[in-house]
């Protein structure tokens, strides 16, 4: 941003500091304003930087799995899935079909949980307080399922390299089915509250438009890309963990504005329930752990594997030197790359719209900063 002096009376530099209820974490946005209109923004990140990539070089492959949960802490299961799949690809092992199906169920439940947090906090930022409580109530059910399955609600450490550690607990299928049956009417409830609501539409329509070409140029993936009209989902384009067996649709939007992104994510929640039901119906029996050696020492090489996390394309680039510790682990975080487009999306918007745009990108600072 060009320098401004105190005598420059038409432009105001406002700091939306790291402690702010609407920035979804410790994100600092420096706004350059002309009255209420935003001329430019600058994001300052790094307040939550923990050096996960450096830690990875000092831990063994299996020891690093709990750290991976803590990056995108809202969707911890997806992070674990990506990392385990990447290491399994390096090793040349594939998880058995039962493990893959349970992984899909847990990952889709996690996608619903992540979108619920997104919906609750985004609605809260815009001003609607009620959806937050309702979303948290549904999320409690999902977190209870996670707790009964793997022992933790948020940082689940659900998967291991090669499969699963825990067999599904006794009431797993019943609980998940009960959740799916309970959840679909609740999504209709959220839509009743928000979709036709004139305040919601006025706050979200035509705000933060990012066209398909701009999305591709900025490397933006996930629901933002789909709302711009590009029918692309890594679960269909490059399926992993048995996703090609399940039938589901990819919801897309038309304009690429915040309202379309909201609709896309609501539809994604419904499609996730569809996938979970299909996976439960066809849940195979069998072992839950593949043939992985006790000491994981992949051959020298490198791999890049990405999955469709709730926020976008989450990629892991792992370089192995043949020892028990990875040589380099690079995490390609979707929120980091999506956040770059904030400047583009906020051109000409008002200050209140900046809050809406930060909400629609769906960032989690743990992932942006790692």
């Amino acid at each position, binding site marked *: 941003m060009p320098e401004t002096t105190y005598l420059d009376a038409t432009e105001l530099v406002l700091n939306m500091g790291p402690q702010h209820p609407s920035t979804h974490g410790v994100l600092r946005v420096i706004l350059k304003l002309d009255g209420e209109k935003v001329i430019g923004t600058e994001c300052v990140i790094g307040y939550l930087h923990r050096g996960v*990539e450096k830690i990875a070089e000092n831990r063994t492959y299996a020891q690093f799995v709990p750290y991976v949960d803590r990056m995108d802490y809202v969707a911890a299961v997806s992070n674990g899935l990506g990392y385990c799949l990447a290491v399994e*690809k390096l090793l040349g092992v594939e998880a058995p079909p039962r493990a893959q199906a349970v992984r899909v169920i847990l990952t889709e439940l996690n996608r619903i949980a992540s979108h619920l947090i997104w919906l609750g906090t985004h609605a809260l930022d815009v001003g609607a307080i009620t959806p937050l409580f309702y979303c948290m109530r549904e999320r409690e059910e999902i977190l209870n399922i996670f707790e009964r399955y793997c022992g933790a609600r948020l940082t689940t450490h659900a998967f291991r390299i090669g499969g699963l550690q825990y067999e599904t607990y006794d009431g797993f299928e019943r609980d998940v089915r009960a959740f799916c049956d309970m959840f679909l009417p609740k999504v209709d409830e959220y839509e009743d509250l928000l979709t036709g609501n004139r305040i919601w539409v006025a706050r979200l329509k035509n705000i933060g438009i990012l066209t398909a070409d701009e999305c591709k140029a900025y490397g933006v993936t996930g629901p933002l890309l789909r709302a711009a009209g590009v029918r692309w989902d890594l679960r269909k384009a490059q399926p992993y963990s048995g996703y090609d067996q399940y039938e589901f649709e990819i919801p897309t939007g038309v304009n690429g504005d915040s309202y379309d992104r909201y609709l896309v994510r609501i539809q994604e929640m419904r499609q996730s329930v569809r996938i979970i039901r299909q996976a439960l119906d066809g849940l195979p029996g069998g072992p839950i752990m593949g043939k992985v050696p006790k000491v994981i020492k992949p051959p020298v*090489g490198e791999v*890049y594997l990405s999955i469709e996390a709730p926020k976008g394309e989450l990629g892991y680039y792992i370089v192995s030197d043949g020892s028990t510790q990875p040589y380099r682990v690079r995490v*390609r975080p979707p929120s980091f790359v999506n956040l770059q487009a904030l400047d583009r999306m906020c051109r000409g918007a008002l200050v209140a719209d900046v809050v809406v745009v930060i909400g629609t990108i769906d960032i989690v600072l743990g992932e942006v900063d790692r």
Partner: protein
Amino acid sequence: MRQCAGARVCDELMSADKPEGKPQPATKSPPAMAATAWEDELTRQLKQHFGSQISEFSTYLGQQFLVASPEAVIPILEHLKQEAGFDYLVDVTAVDYPDRPERFELVYILYSFARNHRIRIKTRIAEGVRPRTAVGVYPTANWLEREVFDMFGIEFEGHPDMRRILLPEDWSGHPLRKDTSILAMDNRWVKEHLGIESGQ
């Protein structure tokens, strides 16, 4: 190889059985991986345009990559974007091999929506070399290159805003280089601020 960095046990509980040794992250470069050659329409096209500037076309585990010389990287990216339809830059990152004379290996990962295919472009640069920025080709590279600079110290020429992004502005050092040891950093801080030898 185990590390017990930062196990803050009080002195009387420190016992003889505690695993000894400083953490040893890998500093020796790994041996070459078992990559096989990659040959198809795209490689022929690239060979035609860039000839000797691409030293290697390989594939490992089904993922294709090519190794190019540093000056050729931006023209290759431009060519791939315009001619071959690789319109999405997935990632820019680097790996540090301190043994080699050209210690950093800069990796660009590209994806093409039309082909549904990912390739990697690698280049080896020595310390102090300033590669050209890819921001002109893909705006995604803006923050990604800032992060590479922050973590490794590789400056990109022509970048609109070459500053640290994740670490504070006044941080000295580049953490992801292999010669930066977290334990040494911890010991330095502890000596300076607490006056004790080590927190271990």
